[in-house]
């Protein structure tokens, strides 16, 4: 990868293709374009959530911090490195990226876990850890957002109205919470698509598919 990824690149770069290393007209490009509307809207979602025209109440630096944190919770992957890099390049407040690196390392565990309503599912309850951000370099609204991201990544079935109340106490509005929830939940999708495509890339095309593309 010689070009550095940017949402503002001209010609525009597709984030998933960039991270997985999919060249135009390669077998994976052809495969992805079989679902072109999805391909376009996965990119559009990333742009809307991570490079918005207007930040609203959710600063772009904080959006990138949440993205780097969530990606980092999934392991030390290419998408994690990319979001950390975008965070470093965007920062108004310095020194957030090493803090996020540290927090995502501390926050790693195995998911999904969580509770169920009392009844036949009680036997399936899995206890796991919560996560608190007390770092003085992280402001209160971002700290609560990162805690929410940890919960939503690893144990979404522990959801409660109290989790949303904690965000509101830190200044998040209903609309801000919707955008934050979309960002964290979208990342769960995007990280998995990138993972799946990367495994396909490593395995290579099915033997039959290669033959039909090279009829000679």
């Amino acid at each position: 990868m010689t070009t550095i990824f940017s949402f503002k690149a001209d010609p525009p770069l597709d984030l998933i293709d960039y991270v997985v290393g999919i060249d135009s007209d390669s077998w994976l490009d052809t495969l992805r374009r079989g679902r072109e509307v999805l391909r376009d809207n996965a990119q559009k979602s990333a742009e809307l959530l991570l490079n918005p025209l207007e930040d609203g109440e959710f600063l772009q630096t904080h959006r990138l911090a949440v993205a780097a944190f969530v990606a980092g919770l999934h392991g030390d992957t290419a998408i994690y490195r990319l979001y950390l890099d975008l965070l470093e390049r965007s920062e108004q407040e310095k020194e957030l990226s090493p803090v996020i690196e540290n927090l995502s390392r501390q926050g790693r565990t195995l998911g999904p876990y969580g509770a169920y309503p009392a009844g036949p599912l009680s036997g399936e309850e899995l206890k796991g850890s919560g996560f608190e951000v007390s770092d003085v370099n992280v402001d209160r609204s971002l700290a609560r957002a990162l805690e929410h991201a940890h919960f939503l990544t690893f144990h979404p079935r522990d959801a409660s109205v109290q989790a949303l109340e904690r965000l509101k106490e830190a200044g998040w509005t209903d609309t801000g919470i919707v955008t934050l929830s979309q960002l964290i939940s979208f990342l769960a999708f995007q990280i998995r698509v990138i993972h799946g495509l990367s495994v396909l890339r490593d395995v290579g095309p099915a033997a039959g598919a290669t033959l039909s593309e090279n009829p000679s």
Partner: protein
Amino acid sequence: MSVTEQTVSKTDTQEPDRFTKAQLDWHPWLEPLEEGNLTEAHYEGLVDRARAKSPYFRLLARDPEILGARTRSDKDIFYNVAGGLPRRERELAATAVSRFNGCIYCASVHARFSERQGGSPEALAALLETGQLPQDTDLKWQLVEEIARRLSETPVGFSHVHIRVLRQAGFEDAEILDLINASSFFNWANRLMLSLGYPTLPSE
């Protein structure tokens, strides 16, 4: 709907304590937009105008652009029948992911969708009840269920072994990509549905 009304209505209704194919209701913990206040920008995000009746979509309409991108992704993954995985298997993946993550509401909807597309009612009922398909279930179904689950683990537990097994069982790459997309998408959908409100059994 005021917070007081939500609190009152909660005492009248019962949250399901198990996975079910029954039609459930869903109640938001945050204020959805009022239907009368929706503008064209909101309808653009909702995509289908009928979705304005749903409190879930009117809540997500607070950020209409990302709702629109989410909805168009959803439709291409589950409704685009140009090649790829049969729809009942895409819906099976959605059900399996929802069962694994613990989204009782999402699992109920997509088990019904899979059944409507020709999925086995018995296999789906067993998946909802036990979290597993019966042992005599068709191999392709077993693989879809297993791989949907692997893709939903954090860190993601999907590997090259799964691609090889899928190809050996006769899955084409377009079908494998549909399985990856459908399973990944439900990791998005489940998290919104679980964290922004709660399900109840239909009132008598």
